């Protein structure tokens, strides 16, 4: 395994974790937007309670992806930034407004500002996954062209295609699915039933969006289509993804919410890994490869060491964070955040 491949694997793994954790936070915002029925307020409160202590930590995974990209694959970072200027800028607006609005709303108890920022929070929670998914789809589509010196050769709007729209929808559906599956674990009674039903609906939307993206990829992203159908690992990967999806539905149906959370996460992780594998060895199809964009060897080795050392501090801290807020303690106390009194 080359160092470039190892760094690529780290970037993909960080993106998987970002989808599983940060993605679910966006999904929470989507359920805030779609809150309905007699327990509308309780649904929104649960979302706020669930993501409040952890969203900032979850967000850092995206920063890690960016940093690994510009340190380890500087040419790719330049190519991605120039060809995807428009959707990345939109993504930034989604990220900034989501984070700021969530906090403004949480700390504006009884303030007239609260309702308005609540709407901004939920709307930007939809914008961010749509644009993030579109960025990923565009990278795989083969429509983004870059000269060897990094100058973009494609139109600034080349990223916007039916295929990238379908991957945007897929990301939004997937994040909503994850969020509902996670929230069901943290809810009781009727509220849990609400989120089990929502997870089921979102799971169906994931299936539909994935099918649409696969069909569109036949014409619009041939390399992805080949990856999805014709590589030696294609069939086992689809079988595993499909099995995780079916098990998630079964667990939701039978009220095994912890199992549902696990299988939903497994399904999402397999989808992201499947995308990464399908476009290997390209970072931007078809002009930028892992090896072609890689930084000098010494930088790659040092970066791997830095990532390893960082992981030694990160993993125990994250374990503590999730144990405190997502472990059994949560159900026992059941109270809102300590600072909100």
């Amino acid at each position, binding site marked *: 395994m080359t160092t470039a491949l190892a760094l690529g694997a780290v970037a993909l793994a960080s993106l998987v974790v970002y989808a599983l954790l940060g993605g679910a936070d966006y999904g929470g915002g989507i359920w805030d937007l779609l809150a309905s029925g007699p327990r509308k307020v309780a649904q929104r409160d649960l979302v706020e309670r669930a993501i409040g202590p952890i969203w900032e930590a979850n967000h850092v995974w995206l920063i890690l992806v960016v940093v690994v990209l510009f340190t380890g694959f500087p040419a790719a970072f330049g190519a991605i930034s120039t060809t995807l*200027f428009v959707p990345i800028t939109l*993504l930034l607006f989604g990220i900034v407004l989501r984070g700021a609005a969530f906090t403004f709303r949480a700390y504006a108890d009884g*303030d007239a*500002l609260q309702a308005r920022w609540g709407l901004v929070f939920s709307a930007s929670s939809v914008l961010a996954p749509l644009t993030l998914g579109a960025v990923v789809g565009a990278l795989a589509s083969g429509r983004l062209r870059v000269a060897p010196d990094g100058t973009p050769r494609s139109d600034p709007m080349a990223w916007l295609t039916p295929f990238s729209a379908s991957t945007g929808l897929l990301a939004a559906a997937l994040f909503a699915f994850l969020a509902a599956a996670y929230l069901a674990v943290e809810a009781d009674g009727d509220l849990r039933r609400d989120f089990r039903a929502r997870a089921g609906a979102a799971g169906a939307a994931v299936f539909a969006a994935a099918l649409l993206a696969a069909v569109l990829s036949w014409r619009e992203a041939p390399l992805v289509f080949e990856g999805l159908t014709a590589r030696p690992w294609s069939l086992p990967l689809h079988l595993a993804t499909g099995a995780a999806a079916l098990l998630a539905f079964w667990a939701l149906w039978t009220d095994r919410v912890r199992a549902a959370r696990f299988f939903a996460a497994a399904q999402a992780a397999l989808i992201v890994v499947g995308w990464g594998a399908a476009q290997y060895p390209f970072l931007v199809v078809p002009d930028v490869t892992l090896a072609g964009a890689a930084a000098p060897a010494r930088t790659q080795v040092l*970066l791997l060491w830095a990532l390893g050392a960082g992981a030694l501090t990160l993993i125990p801290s*994250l374990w503590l964070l999730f144990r405190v807020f997502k472990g059994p303690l949560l159900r026992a106390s059941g109270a809102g*955040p300590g600072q909100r009194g």
Partner: protein
Amino acid sequence: MPDLLAARWLFGLSLAFHIVFAAVGVAMPLLMVLAEWRWRRTGAAVYLDLSRRWAKGVAILFAVGAVSGTVISFELGLLWPRFMAFAGPIIGMPFSLEGFAFFAEAIFLGLFLYGRERISPRLHFLSGVLVALSGALSAFFVTLANVWMNHPAGFDLVLGRAEAVDPLVAMFPAGWAEQVVHVLISSYAATAVAVAGIHAWFLRRAPTDPFHRAALGVVLPVAVLASLLQPVSGDFSARRIAGTQPVKLAALEGHFHTGRYAPLRLGGLPDAATAETRWALELPAGLSLLAFHDPGAEVKGLLDFPRDTWPDPLKVHLAFQVMVGLGTALAALSAAVLLLWWRRRALPVDRWLLGALVLAAPAGFLALEAGWLVTEWGRQPFTIWGVMRTADAVTPVSSLTVPLVAFAALYVLLGTTVAVLLWRQILHAAPGARHAGEQP
């Protein structure tokens, strides 16, 4: 607006906005932990209340800092892709380590803000300490990247490409300690001075209010210490620049003609066309003395350097004067506070002093912004000193005025909302704030 100018405005605006929240993110957790510590030591409920309220402020300000910092990390590529393609492998190390410091900050802030009822008091306090430490560590790493732009090291330039890259050498270029210390102290000074000013404002209205007295008692030592240390740190920085970036020093001081016994100019407007600085108060041999600690030292003037490597002396000199002027004023005010405190052995709350603190409240942040402009404008026309010009680093993407306007509107919206929320939710709601009456 030309795209290069729009790119510089957009990046400058994003940094000017972010830098305030970044500085607060470094210093405010320290204040919050100090209040918490006082509560643990004294058991006085007022300190617990203080820690909680400051923590609420940290929560709002940190969130905006986190997302505005994300904008910066993407804009490095969106606006300066050629700079990043060149510099990424060289200075990626401090950025990746900063990523982990940021992780720690976010994780332990979550535990501190939301975990009070869920974790032991000791772990809760430790979380706060770790937030303060990792905040300082983040600033440390990020500043290292900026130091490298001023003093590029750790590579050989071969036909415009970087060869023999050594990120460890690049991480600690000449002058790293001076700049990192200066930036860290500026964060503590700016934040503590601003917080002291806010509580002083309330104390002027309700001089006996225990809440604001407690707040001033915690924050004032930090403000005084940082403000007194900053001129010393500034002296080290200026002497470093005199050695490594003489053209920048010449621009800072509006100094055109090389010579011994160079004067220090207070105020004045440098005019690049006529190569003189008019209307300045000149202190004979002052610049030689400050820059080299020798009145007879020769200081190179701008005219000794090729015209196309000059920064704009007018902008740089003015920003430098603002920074030094405000910094000196804050140090003088801090000395006065210290003297009164020491003579009375009690927190000084004289009306005139509180008034001065209120007036000084924005001074630290203004000095910090001015100092940042000095570094950035002073490095022009280069983005990497002597290696890459800003004009060569910019993106080929056009119509950058559109994102410029959009982000400017976003920052105005966020800045206003933060101010309103801090006012209504934290200060107005403070127990002592009832005297503040029906302010909006």
